[in-house]
Structures are given as structure tokens and as C-alpha cells.
């Protein structure tokens, strides 16, 4: 562990990239640290490596609990022995993204001057996150990945991997994602960023140096975003207009409704585990994501004759990255001549369905990985 790492992350596995990382914005980051976790064993020729890419507020603890916080794994339904991402067969690695706040270099990390970067951290892109992952994989001595799998922002990384390094990734599994952030996506995340920056405790981004945390702003950002992660049907099923611990409305601005209480809880529980500046940077990276912009708006041209096998999933009630956004990816891949599978799962659980119990999805993912593994001789 380098000396300048935040002390609270000492239980994390961290690798420092051997080379400086060149960023899309033109700047270069030195001594980039990548926090990671892994499960299962690599085979003799390391052809069985799967990289799991996490979503906006996820981390590297996809399949085992976070040792610092005790927070449970976020994808235990899918990763493990005998599961779709079978750790008896595959060597599974997850990293915390560049700009994140679970041990990988981000705005809460110390800059070379020994003080936290804060808003001095350069604005990063999904492309930068993947370049960091590629450097990390290379540093581990791994030439290519059997699969890159991720939901939501993780799906953007899965697509970015295939676009950036088609020769280094055998399969790509983008789930509930988009190849370009829509105006609606940008709008919702802008509300979140403005909430953070309007909190006086944000201190122009220098809150860490001043011993403060913009918790109220970050909680509101989380509340606004969380609405987009659940479907209207799920909110109705869970809460409808139910009242919270009371018989009638209070004629005040207390959390009368269960849905208010739920959202407040979502907001408050989030601020303990996430850095506000990280939220600004990572949402910005998603806003800047538009793969088609690299080929004059034609997404198919980005993947023309790609050797990568794709498997795209969407969920019918997802209005954050709706089925149409995923179908657009699929249609581009078909036009590009790529081998692609696509499945829209019927679910009323909204965007978060990709993390929840959906047996058809889990079996289809297992089938795709298993047949791909046979092709690769795993």
C-alpha cells in the first residue's frame, strides 16, 4: 500500500498502475491505484478471466461482502460456484472504477501535493475507466478477457471494452444500459449534481480538507436518481399511497407517505458509503458517453466486423435505460455483422431488476457464457 492512500481503505486489495494514465480530457494521472477483488482461480493459460464492471454506486465487492463496511455483495445471485458466472469455471475480477471512492484513485484520493484532489481531479470518461482497467489487467499479466460483464454504467464499460480492445475481449455482456446517455439521463443526473453543489457543506468541492461532508445534497441526489431505478409499478406495489406509521396525513412536511420515508432512507444510507465528488465525476463520465459519436453517429460502424460475441439484456419496466436503448445497441450490432444475442426480460422491477431475482435472465446468461466458454476451450 502506498503511503498516501486513505487509511480507512487499508483492508482493500489495491494495485498501482505502473504507467501514468492518459485521459480523454488531455491530462495525465500518475500513480493510479486500482482497488479490486477476485473469486475463482485462473486456469493455466488465463483464458477464463471475467471482468465485472459495476454501476454508478457499486464497487468491487460484487460477490463477497465489503470487509470495511460489512455491506453485502451486490451480485451474489449471479456470481458464485455453480451460478451463471460460475467461479468454479471462471476467474472473476471486479475493480472499483477510476473516479470511484472504494479504493481506486478518485477525487477523494490525495493529489501529489498530499491533499485530496476534490474538484482538481480531472474530468474522466467511461473510456478512461476502461483504459485504467486495461492497464490493470495487463499489470496482472492477463492478455485478454473471456468476458466483460456489467449492468447500467457497467454495461457502458462492457461496450467500451469491445470498442476499444476488440482483440482483447472474447465476449461482452452489456445489461440494462445505453450506448449514449439520453437527454433524460443527463437531466436526472444534473439534478443530482446541482443538489450536491448547492449544499453549503460541499465547500466548492473542498469539503474533505475542511472536515465537512455535503450529506444533504448527496442524499437528495441519490433520492432523485433512485426514483429512476424503480418502476412506477414497483413503487405502487410496494407503497402505493400508504402512510408511514400513522393513521392520517399530518398536515406537515414530515414523511407522511411510505414512499417518502423509503426515499429518505435510500438517501441517508447512501451518504455513509459514497463520496459526493465521486458522484459528480462518475455521473459526468456517463453523461459524456456516446459511443456512436466516434463514427459520425453510426453506432454500427464502431463495431463493424467485430470478433466479439455480445449478449445484451434489458428489462421491460426499466425507464432509466429502457429496452429501446438496449435494442438500439442490438440493432447496431446486427448491422455490424456481430454475433449478438438479445433478451428483454418481462419484469415490473424497473432498472434495478438486473440485480434482482429474474430466473430467465440468469439461465440465459449462464447459457451464453457456457457456450462461449466451450468455443474458447474453457
Amino acid at each position, binding site marked *: 500500500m502506498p503511503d498516501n492512500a486513505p487509511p480507512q481503505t487499508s483492508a482493500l486489495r489495491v494495485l498501482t498502475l505502473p504507467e501514468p494514465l492518459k485521459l480523454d480530457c488531455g491530462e495525465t494521472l500518475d500513480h493510479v491505484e486500482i482497488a479490486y477483488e477476485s473469486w475463482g482461480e485462473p486456469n493455466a493459460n488465463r483464458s477464463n478471466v471475467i471482468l465485472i464492471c459495476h454501476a454508478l454506486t457499486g464497487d468491487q465487492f460484487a460477490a463477497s461482502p465489503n470487509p470495511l463496511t460489512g455491506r453485502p455483495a451486490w451480485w451474489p445471485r449471479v456470481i458464485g460456484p455453480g451460478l451463471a458466472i460460475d467461479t468454479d469455471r471462471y476467474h472473476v475480477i471486479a475493480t472499483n472504477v477510476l473516479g470511484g471512492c472504494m479504493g481506486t484513485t478518485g477525487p477523494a484520493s490525495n493529489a501529489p501535493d498530499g491533499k485530496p484532489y476534490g474538484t482538481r481531479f480531472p474530468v474522466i470518461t467511461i473510456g478512461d475507466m476502461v483504459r485504467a482497467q486495461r492497464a490493470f489487467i495487463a499489470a496482472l499479466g492477463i492478455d485478454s478477457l473471456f468476458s466483460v460483464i456489467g449492468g447500467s454504467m457497467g454495461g457502458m464499460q462492457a461496450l467500451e471494452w469491445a470498442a476499444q480492445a476488440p482483440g482483447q475481449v472474447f465476449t461482452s455482456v452489456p445489461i440494462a444500459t445505453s450506448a449514449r446517455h439520453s437527454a433524460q439521463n443527463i437531466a436526472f443526473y444534473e439534478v443530482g449534481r446541482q443538489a450536491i453543489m448547492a449544499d453549503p457543506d460541499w465547500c466548492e468541492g473542498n469539503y474533505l480538507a475542511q472536515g465537512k461532508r455535503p450529506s444533504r445534497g448527496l442524499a437528495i441526489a441519490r433520492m432523485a436518481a433512485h426514483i429512476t431505478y424503480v418502476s412506477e409499478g414497483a413503487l405502487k406495489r410496494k407503497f402505493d399511497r400508504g402512510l408511514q406509521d400513522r393513521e392520517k396525513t399530518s398536515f406537515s412536511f414530515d414523511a407522511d407517505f411510505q414512499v417518502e420515508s423509503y426515499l429518505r432512507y435510500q438517501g441517508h444510507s447512501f451518504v455513509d458509503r459514497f463520496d459526493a465528488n465521486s458522484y459528480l465525476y462518475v455521473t459526468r463520465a456517463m453523461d459524456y458517453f456516446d459511443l456512436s459519436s466516434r463514427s459520425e453517429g453510426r453506432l454500427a460502424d464502431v463495431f463493424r466486423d467485430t470478433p466479439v460475441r455480445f*449478449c445484451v439484456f434489458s428489462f421491460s419496466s426499466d425507464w432509466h435505460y429502457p429496452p429501446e436503448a438496449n435494442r438500439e445497441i442490438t*440493432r447496431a450490432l*446486427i448491422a455490424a455483422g456481430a454475433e449478438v*444475442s438479445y433478451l428483454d426480460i*418481462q419484469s415490473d422491477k424497473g432498472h434495478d431488476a438486473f440485480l434482482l431475482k429474474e430466473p*430467465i435472465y440468469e*439461465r*440465459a446468461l449462464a*447459457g451464453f457464457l457456457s*457456450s462461449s466458454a466451450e468455443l474458447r476451450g474453457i
Partner: protein
Amino acid sequence: MVEQRTVRPDHEAIARRVRQGARVLDVGCGDGALLDLLKSTRSVDARGLELSSETAGIAMARGLSVIQGDADSDLELFPDDSFEVAILSQAVQQMRRPARVLGELARIAPEVIVSFRNYGLWSRRLTLIRHGRMPAPGLAHEDGVLLPVTALDMIELAGRLGLACVAVAPVRGGEVGAFRNKGLKRLNWGADEVILHLRRM
């Protein structure tokens, strides 16, 4: 793993018409039974297109490469000649625009195999004449009404779309007869279902 099912005779007959190792697109592939057979007996590079999420999910679970999509709108995306063989097995009669679908298949692959219920069958003709009723499946059937088409209709349509009939096989009582390219009127009279092997002219 999906349990082994008995192989349907019409699937076997279709598989025998497909070259070893060919790139095959099965449109309306359902749960992937035919693609699975083609993979195991013909080592084809198998792809499927299926409208239903549930059956597409089953096909994917058995390791098949399947796109959940609508043949009526998604086929236009596939590049010219991206496959060697395109198959429409018991699917063309559920399409909204069968002529357009068949035309797209002729563009995507030089060979097209189509199987469907033959409304030229004598007993179906009699049902309409004697009782004034459409042959089954009727309006109340859960799959809805199938497009009533005869073997001769389909051969004529294929011809207009630039697809010549290489051979036809009749299916009666679940058994597949020999492929032939003559006596089509008789076949149209006697076949419950037909399998058409078409090739771009």
C-alpha cells in the same frame, strides 16, 4: 441443461437440407429445438430470431445465439448475404407481412427453407366448401388464425421474390415424404404441411 426432447421429423428433414458448417438464421426459432439439432448434427453456425421473451430465454439458456426481436421489422438490419441458409419453420403464417419477410430472407441468404401448414389439403378445401367454415385453427385458437396459404401460393410468391423452388416435401400425419420438384398439384392436394427448399435465382 434443457432436457432432451424427441426430435421432430420435420426438423430432421430440414436439417438434412442444410450443409455441414453453414451459417444459419432460424426466424421464429421458438425454444431453439431446430437450431440445437442443426448445431449437433450439422455443426452449423446457428443464430435465431424469436419474438417471445420466454421462448427466446429458453433458447439462450441452452447456449444458442438468439435475438429477441420482430421478424417484421428487424430482418432489414441484417447485411446482405450474412447467412448461407435462412429458415422459417412453422413461422411464416404468424407474420404480419409474410411477403416482406420472405423477401428479406432472400436478401440475407441465398437459400431459404420454409415450412408451413398447407391450406391446399383436400380436407381443408372441403371444410370451407361443405360447411362454410375456415379450417382449424379457428378464431378461438390461442395462436390466433394462421395465414391460410397453400403450397402453390407460397411457391408462386417465392418466384416473384426471386426464389426458385429447389424441392418440396409433404408432411402427412407427422411423417415427412421425399423431397421432389414435380407433381406439385398433387402434393398441394395431399400434404398437411409442406417444407419448401428455395434458392435465389
